[in-house]
């Protein structure tokens, strides 16, 4: 009798739970969190004493932390305003790299100090993409030699370092002297600009390439192509898949371009001195 009771309850529970939980699957729509709707009509830029602010209709743009969005550079503010204006029905925050970078720099969500960021960049040198080359395959080796080596040479000359590439799995030896020289260079930038540098380095997985593109040695497309050099090489044999390779290429280009613009707008200031006419 006792077992009957238990079975009865179990059965009724099963029945109830079936009724409650096993909703017949209708259609095939996967439910994602929907992005916020575009709630404004017009974006514009305000010039105030502290810098440039952005308005969405009559509201002022704020960062995710709630502080007022202010940047020092006019073109940067205009680019962010344009980015907000180019959202169609929804605000696609994952595709707004320039705004995201500005927000990160303003909010500094990880409370990074300048020293943390410089250390992060320095730790990247030993695993820099262009320093790891491969000599088993002649064509690939030639490609890397022709494309990467000039940039390593440029980097060594520009920063007076002596980075050496490695041909196997052992990481390249970076002397303390070189590290100090590179750290000095990064220390000279302000906190916002360093956010841009980190974004560029994370995109390219290479400090040498990031510095080359920020110092205008190579255009953005070329830098991304060089960061994906081996992938591009292997594509020739295995085929190009649009939804993987092209997608990642376009995303890297957009990210890197955003980082380069951000760095340039943040560390360039124009002082215009008028000639005095007596």
């Amino acid at each position, binding site marked *: 009798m006792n077992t009957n009771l238990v079975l009865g309850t179990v059965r009724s529970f099963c029945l109830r739970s079936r009724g409650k939980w096993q909703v017949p699957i209708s*259609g*095939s*729509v*996967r439910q994602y969190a929907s992005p916020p709707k575009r709630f404004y009509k017009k*974006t*514009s*830029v305000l010039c105030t004493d502290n810098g440039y602010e952005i308005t969405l209709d009559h509201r002022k743009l704020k960062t995710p932390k709630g502080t007022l969005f202010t940047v020092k550079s*006019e*073109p940067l503010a*205009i*680019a962010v*305003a*344009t980015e907000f*204006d*180019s*959202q*169609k029905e929804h605000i696609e925050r994952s*595709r707004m*790299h*320039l705004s995201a970078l500005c927000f990160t720099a303003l909010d500094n969500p990880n409370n990074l100090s300048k020293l943390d960021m410089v250390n992060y960049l320095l730790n990247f040198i030993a695993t820099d993409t262009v320093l790891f080359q491969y000599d088993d395959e002649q064509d690939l080796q030639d490609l890397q030699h022709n494309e990467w080596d000039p940039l390593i040479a440029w980097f060594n000359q520009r920063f007076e370092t002596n980075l050496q590439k490695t041909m196997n799995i052992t990481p390249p030896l970076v002397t303390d002297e070189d590290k100090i020289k590179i750290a000095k260079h990064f220390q000279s930038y302000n906190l916002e600009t360093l956010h841009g540098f980190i974004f560029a380095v994370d995109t390219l997985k290479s400090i040498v390439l990031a510095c080359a593109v920020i*110092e*205008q040695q190579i*255009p*953005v*497309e070329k830098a991304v192509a060089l960061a994906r050099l081996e992938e591009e090489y292997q594509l020739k044999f295995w085929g190009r898949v*649009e*939804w993987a390779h*092209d*997608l990642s290429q*376009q*995303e890297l*280009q*957009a990210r890197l*371009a*955003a980082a*380069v*613009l951000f760095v*340039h707008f943040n560390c*360039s200031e*124009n002082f215009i001195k008028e000639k005095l006419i007596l």
Partner: protein
Amino acid sequence: MSATKVLRSLLNELRRASPNGCIKDSLAAKYILAQYKKFETTDQQLCKARNEAIFLGNTYNTYLASLRNYKELYMEYHGRGERTVKETADLVGFKLPTDPK
């Protein structure tokens, strides 16, 4: 790319990015045109790296174009959940038992 080409493709990208396809009162277009006016004869007026203005123009152009291409690819391929039996059958050229022969 020459300066004029960069300008044309920048304006084109801005037009494509704007929600109504019109850049008459776009801030960015105005700013870029003002910069071009300013550097009409030479962009070496300020103490900056050679061709810095054109490099930035190119970079912004790449930014807009890459975002647009990315979005197009994403819209074409992003996951929309499982296909229905009908869609799967169409994909491989089969017919459902309910379809006419």
